């Protein structure tokens, strides 16, 4: 129910008038100058991927001439220590991909339990889960280190993979998503004779798919960017993810190789940029109208 508008609406972003542009000019000036500032590092980043070390040292803002993007930098990164970069790439996709898929699915199951059933200790469990989730990662990573050492899992891919499956934020959001699915939908399926597992897969999941996809992407980014966990758990270079590996691109004397560092960081960021663009589409999860 909207009230009748008695007042002319505030000149907002929706309507166009040349007058508005002039009046908003100060806003444009502020926003445009900050835009330049915010874009400068990214511009420098892209330009720098085309330079070798000596070109970097000149401190210019132009493209490298000759252009070293492919030869020297790209080939150099992949040739570093007999191609260990390729392994980092695979590891990153393994940790982030498996962590996001399995973690989100597990969170969906847990969220469904909170949505669909009353059960003993429900409130307490939810509060406990959220409470433990507030414990910062560096407080859990050290004890986890000693647990994995006792299990003989230290410096294995499991030691990064298993903690990456925990997605408490995902459980919380899943409860929110599940709450958007009307009860009638589940009840109707139940009356039709579907059991609980069938209801989850055939009725539930399709209805929260946009949210589910968003959570997978968010979890992927989180695991991909997690530096502290692999830093603590892994000591052999061939198991590193990219985010850990790029900090170890040094010469034999231990000096950083700047142009390869930059290229490594660039390649680490590209999947995230793709995720970012994809996520624009999914950021507004909506319930498809199954119930009218």
């Amino acid at each position: 129910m909207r009230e009748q508008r008695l007042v002319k609406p505030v000149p907002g972003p929706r309507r166009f008038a040349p007058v508005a542009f002039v009046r908003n000019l100060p806003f444009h000036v502020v926003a445009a100058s900050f835009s330049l500032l915010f874009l400068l590092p990214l511009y420098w980043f892209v330009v720098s991927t085309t330079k070798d070390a000596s070109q970097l040292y000149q401190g210019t803002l132009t493209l490298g001439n000759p252009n070293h993007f492919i030869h020297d930098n790209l080939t150099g990164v992949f040739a570093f220590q007999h191609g260990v970069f390729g392994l980092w790439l695979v590891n990153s996709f393994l940790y982030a991909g498996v962590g996001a898929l399995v973690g989100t699915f597990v969170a969906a199951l847990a969220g469904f339990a909170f949505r669909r059933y009353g059960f003993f200790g429900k409130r307490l469990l939810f509060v406990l889960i959220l409470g433990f989730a507030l414990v910062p990662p560096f407080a859990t990573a050290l004890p986890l280190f000693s647990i994995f050492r006792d299990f003989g899992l230290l410096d294995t891919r499991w030691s990064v993979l298993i903690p990456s499956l925990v997605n408490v934020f995902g459980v919380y959001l899943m409860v929110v998503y599940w709450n958007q699915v009307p009860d009638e939908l589940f009840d109707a399926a139940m009356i039709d004779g579907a059991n609980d597992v069938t209801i989850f897969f055939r009725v539930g999941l399709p209805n929260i798919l946009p949210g589910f996809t968003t959570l997978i992407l968010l979890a992927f980014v989180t695991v991909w960017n997690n530096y502290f966990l692999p830093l603590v758990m892994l000591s052999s270079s061939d198991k590193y993810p990219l985010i850990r590996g790029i900090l170890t691109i040094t010469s034999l004397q231990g000096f950083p190789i700047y142009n390869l560092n930059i290229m490594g960081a660039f390649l680490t960021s590209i999947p995230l940029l793709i995720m970012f663009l994809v996520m624009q589409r999914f950021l507004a999860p909506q319930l498809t109208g199954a119930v009218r």
Partner: protein
Amino acid sequence: MKRFSTLKAFGFLAPFLAIFGFAVVYPVILGGYLSLFGQRGARRWWVGLGNYHQVITDPKFWEGFKIPMFLLFVQVPFMLFLGVVFALIYERVRTARAYRLIFYLPYAFPGIVAGLLWSYMFSKSMSPFLPILKALGVQNPKLITYPALPWILLVIAVWEFTGYTSLILYATLLAIPREYAEQAQLDGANYSQVVWYVKLPMLRNTLLLLLIFNIIGALQVFNEPQFLGQLITLPPNFTPAIYIYNQAFSYGAFTYAIAMGIVLAAIIFAVSFFFLNRSTRELNVRA
């Protein structure tokens, strides 16, 4: 219709609880237990609360809070101010979609990469700013120095998180009923008065929430200085989180590091609850 079935519920919960128990609950409990021991290398002995006493009286631990405090009192207020300005611009300007994207873009990059970019851009060898400074007549310019480190972190953090901050604030602005601003304008308020008396008060709770997020973040700074460490030797207690890592893995005082982690976690909890409690109390008063 909710159905009461503890068995079925825990069937669905089982996978999550198994992983959560193993990777979060058990480590927290074990951490509490281990923090009661002293350790050097493989040797371990009972010290009771001795580690905690040592943490409280360890000046190097508390020195590490200089960076979080600087971020909290300088960077965060500046960023929140900038975030409000950006959010108002998004609300006001037609072409704001492009601005939103540009300001948010840095948030798509990991903290490690943000650290690399700014560290290198300020470095003595690669900085694009140095030729400009030289042209301006500055003798032997140097941007990465010890006194400048907090400011470099400020630049990194502002660059990384302002876009995100402004989007959250923008969402709150959009939720304000238009009638409020219309009414104020009808009563003769100009734009800046509408902002000051109508919009900013409505942003209060969101700003408080953002403040809590930023406190939590500032107390845990670890990733952004990593590449900075390539260019300048950082003290081992540059931030609390870095000190914890160094105590555990460089000095071999593993259980002491765990105790420090718990103290830091307790501080984070305390600060968050202090602010959360305040904000909810205010909400109750208004309701």
